[in-house]
C-alpha cells in the first residue's frame, strides 16, 4: 500500500485516494493540430519502466486533486524531474 502525501492533509493511506490517470500532454487546440497529433493526444499515454507522472484524488479526505511522480517498477513515490 502506498503512503501518499496529500498537500492539504499530509500522509494518508492509498485506500483514501482514487487514482486519476496519467498526466499526459495538455489538450491541444483541435483546430491548430493535424489529425496525427490529435490522435496522439487522444490515445497515447507515457508507459515508462520508471518514474511516471500521475493524478490522484483524495476522495475520502479533503477532496483535493494533485499530481505526483511514482516509479512503475518499484511503486516508490519519487521526486519528479526538475522543470
Amino acid at each position: 500500500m502506498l503512503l501518499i502525501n496529500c498537500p492539504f492533509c499530509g500522509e494518508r493511506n492509498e485506500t483514501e485516494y482514487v487514482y486519476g490517470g496519467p498526466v499526459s500532454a495538455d489538450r491541444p487546440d483541435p483546430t491548430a493540430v493535424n489529425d496525427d497529433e490529435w490522435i496522439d493526444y487522444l490515445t497515447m499515454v507515457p508507459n515508462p519502466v520508471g518514474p511516471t507522472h500521475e493524478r490522484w484524488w483524495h476522495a475520502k479526505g479533503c477532496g483535493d486533486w494533485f499530481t505526483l511522480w511514482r516509479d512503475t517498477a518499484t511503486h516508490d513515490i519519487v521526486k519528479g524531474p526538475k522543470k
Partner: protein
Amino acid sequence: MQKYSIFSLARNALSGHKNWTRAWKSPPLRDRYEVIIIGAGGHGLATAYYLAKEHGITDVAVLDRGWLGGGNIARNTVTIRSNYLRDESIPFYVKSVSLFEGLTKELNFNMMHSKRTMIDVVHNYPKMRELRRRQLTMDIYNSTYDNISTEEVRRRVPALTGGGPGSRLPVIGGMVHTDAGVNRHDAVAWGYARAADSHGVEMHEQTPVLSLIRGSDGAISGVQTSRGVVHAKKVVVAVSGHTTTLTETAGLRLPLRTMNLTAFVSEPVKPLVDVIVNCPDLGFYFSQSDKGEMVIGGAPDSGQSFRRDIKQHVFEDTVGAMLELFPSFKKLKLLRQWGGHLDITHDASPIMDETDVPGLFVTAGWWGGYKAIPAGGLTLAHHVATGRPHPLMEKFTVKRFKNLDFIMETGTTTAR
C-alpha cells in the same frame, strides 16, 4: 518428435526413465533467421508452431529473457472462454476455445483440459443488461450464454451461501457460459515448444533482447541481444507487459499502458465448486483446480505498474468481497499470491498487426490473453507468413486508433 503414449510411458518405466529424449533441443544461436519471435510465452510459441506447421516457415528463433513459459503464461488463471461483447471479438475467441479443445491430440501433450461451465454471478441491473446484450451478440456466433435465476445460480454453486436479499451484496441472477474450461498452462507452453521444435524451430532461453534494430530503409533488420546481434527481416514482439519498452527502441510508440493484475491460490480442499465462478461486479473470479486449490483472480492495481506482485489492499478487497458471497472460504489458507503485468490498449481490445516499422509485428494488449493463445498464434502466423491479416484478426489493427475505429470491449474480466 518422440510420441508420448501409455506404451512409451511403460517402455521408459522399464528402462528406469533414462531414455526419454529432450522435449526441445538447445542449438547454438545463429546470427540470421527468417523470423525472430521475442518472447517464449503462449503467443510467441503458438505463433512459432503455426508458422512451421501451417506455412512451412521453420527458420524461426524464439528468444526469451528468462526461461520458456516463465512469463505471463505461468501467471494467469487458465480460464478459457468466449463470452465477449463485440462482433470482432467473439468469433476469434470461439475459434480459440475450439482449438484449445483439440490441443491435447494435436500436440500429443496432455493439456489436462477440463471443460466446465462458467457462471457469472450478477449484483446489479446495468451489468445484467450488459450481459444480456452480450448474449444476443454471442448467439449469432454460436457461443453459448444463458440467463439463469438466483435460485438456479445457488443450485449450481452450492458454496454460494452469502449474497442473500438482506446482505450487503445481494445476488440478482446469473449467466451461464457452457463453452468455458480450464487446462494446464505449463502444458500449453511445453506442448507448443515441443511441437515447434520437431518442425525445426529453435528456442533460445536466457537471451534477452535489448533493442530492435532498423535498417537504413526503416524496416526491421534484427535485434540486439545480450548474446550479440541476430538478423531477421521479420520480428514478432510477443512480450506482454514490456511491449512498449521494446518497440520504443525502434522509435515506435503504441497506445498501451502496462498494469498489474492480482491472483492467488488457496490450499487444496475436496471438490466443492465444479464451475468457474465469475463476479463481474465485485472484480473477482475463481475455479477449483484438479489438485483442489481455489485459483482466484482479483482486480488490477490502480495506476501503471511493472512490479509483478500484489498490493495488500487489492488482495484484501478481493478476499473481502469473496467472503461476502462464500463465507465458508473463511477458513481457507491461502498458499501463494502473485501478480502479472500486462498491457492494455486504449479500447481494451488487443493489437495484432504489422506496425509502421515494416517487418515488425506486434501482438499486445492482451488482457486475459491466455484464452487467446491458439487463435492468436494461428492468425498472427498467417499474417507473418502471407503479409495479409487473417480474417479473424483483421480488425485488431494498430491503424484502428488512427481512424478512431475503436473496438471498446467489456468482455475482459476487469476492464470495467
